[in-house]
């Protein structure tokens, strides 16, 4: 076990930092905000921490904290400006934000190290530290997933109009999402950078959006647990696949496509569905209908399980 850990410490570390990044994109998606600003915040957090650490002799943890806070603050400001945009328009605006961060880093002269980025920012962060930070973030997110908070967030995502009709302040949720996503993204950036010791503008790229989305889609978008599953799969898959060498990226592409097709809720969704079905089977019988229900209304037969329903047959949903 110990030997295994020593050999794989870096992969474990990469799993955790990938998870942090994915969480910063997953949270807004869970609130129904198509924001990829987490990637820009990764850049802001990473660069801030690296600059403070290498150029201003700030210690590891203050540097991480400042990077995180700056990213969170800027992301919140961004949210104030754009939270009313809808769907992919908001997505585009946040991608624009992230790309602008990258360009600013490229043109930041000696402060940001230009196109070569910053080197030698090896902070004193251990895997245990990352684990603790991650636990903190996950605890916060877990609270937002269970109980009334979780229900309200689900409603804000699935049906903002309904949410408002239930008294939920949708705008505030959306704005706070930007703050939280920015903080997590900034933390991911600061931690990753001080672990790797480097950051370059090329990293703060659409590619990172792709990685984060892939993690979320494979694992499941509904919960941090999904992101964890996705992060593990994505980080370890290449190691597992390395024996196929040249075929690796092709197989990788296939797996991602297959996950998108066959796992609507990701691996987590699949597991949940299985558990639900298992429980349903264990329930004595389908609940006894009251007398009035015996009289079925036309067209009102129960629909088939969610996994088999197609878009064409749904009623309402979007309006």
């Amino acid at each position, binding site marked *: 076990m110990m030997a295994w850990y020593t050999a794989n410490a870096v992969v474990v570390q990469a799993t955790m930092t990938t998870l942090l990044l994915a969480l910063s994109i997953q949270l807004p*998606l869970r609130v*129904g905000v198509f924001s990829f600003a987490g990637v820009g915040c990764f850049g802001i957090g990473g660069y801030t921490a690296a600059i403070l650490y290498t150029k201003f002799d700030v210690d590891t943890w203050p540097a991480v904290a400042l990077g995180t806070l700056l990213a969170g603050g800027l992301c919140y400001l961004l949210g104030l*400006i*754009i939270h*009313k*945009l*809808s*769907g*992919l*328009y908001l997505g*585009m*605006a946040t*991608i*624009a*934000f992230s*790309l*602008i961060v*990258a*360009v*600013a880093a*490229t*043109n930041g002269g000696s402060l940001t190290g230009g196109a070569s980025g910053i080197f030698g920012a090896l902070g004193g962060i251990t895997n245990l530290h990352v684990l603790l930070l991650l636990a903190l973030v996950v605890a916060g997110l877990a609270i937002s997933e269970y109980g009334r908070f979780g229900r309200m967030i689900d409603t804000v*995502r*699935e049906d903002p*109009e309904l949410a408002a009709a239930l008294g939920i302040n949708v705008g505030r949720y959306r704005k706070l999402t930007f703050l939280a996503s920015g903080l997590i993204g900034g933390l991911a950036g600061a931690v990753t950078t001080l672990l790797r010791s480097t950051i370059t503008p090329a990293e703060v790229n*659409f590619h990172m959006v*792709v990685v984060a*989305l*892939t993690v979320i*889609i494979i694992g499941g*978008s509904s919960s941090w647990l999904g992101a964890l599953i996705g992060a593990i799969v994505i980080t370890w898959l290449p190691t597992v696949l390395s024996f196929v060498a*040249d075929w690796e*990226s*092709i197989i*990788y*592409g*296939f*797996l*991602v*496509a*297959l*996950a*998108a*097709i*066959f796992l*609507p809720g990701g691996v987590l969704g699949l597991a949940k569905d299985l558990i639900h079905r298992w429980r349903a089977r264990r329930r004595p019988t389908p609940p006894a209908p009251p007398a009035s229900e015996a009289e079925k209304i036309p067209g009102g037969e129960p629909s088939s399980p*969610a*996994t*088999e*329903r*197609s*878009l*064409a047959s*749904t009623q309402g*949903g*979007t*309006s």
Partner: protein
Amino acid sequence: MQELLNTLTLGSIYLLFALGMALAWSTIGILNFAHGAIFVFSAFSAHIISEHVALSMPVLILISVLVGAAMSALTQWLAFEQILKRSTNHRSAEMRVLIGGIGVAAIPIAIVDKATASAPFGFANSTYKTEVYESMGLRMTNTSLIVIITGVGIAVALTLWLRASRRGLGLRAIGVDSETASLMGVNRTAMALGTMAIAGGLAGLAGALQVFQLQAMGVATGDQLLIKAFAMIVLGGLGSMAGVIFGAFALAGAETLIFAAKLGTWVDAVSFGLIFLVLLVRPQGIFGRQEVRRT
């Protein structure tokens, strides 16, 4: 004046790429992130064949268009259609189509990367020869002319066709409301497949023409254009072909101006900053229709 001409050429290249993507997105609601990979792979297929036989421009374009159409239709059939079948709501479907596209894209890109060892490829062996025209102090190549005419021509034709024809109506109806469309007797699946084939064909056309225009293509070209095309469509306003035309030339114009101002490394920041500002003022894009809200 020369700047205008250059903007026109660059804009037409962008436009050709974005048209197929916009068509699929605004009619059948598929934002195809494999569009860039199809674009690269189609051009690459034509390149491979041209390495063995010296072919003329129309033949190379035809090969590229056919490969593009086939790949795109195949992607639709094997991936996107399957995703839609298994989706319960639009948001998750949109997202999974996006990811599915990214997954699919990885496959042809890996093949091209391996086959070219990351070196740029082109149609050096083609019988086509670029000529330079010069008049009134303006320079232009025959390729640029072809690119501009094809780009603008197809864009306009597509716009009119979508507006006028019954098929167009059906397609637009799918884009707006798939239930109405099926009531109108539009066969959604076949229509979607056809649309994606056309979109893929446009990707192939764009790929081949870009290689003729720029002489070479790198394997990463598709991805770079993808983000730009996404921006152009959003800038113009989703659902409007006129918007795409505007978006393409606006972005090309902005880039040309930024280069003229010697701010080469700021291109992305300025052009995406502009898009950002436009969205703040017009959240539905320049040509986008305001959603009529009904309860």
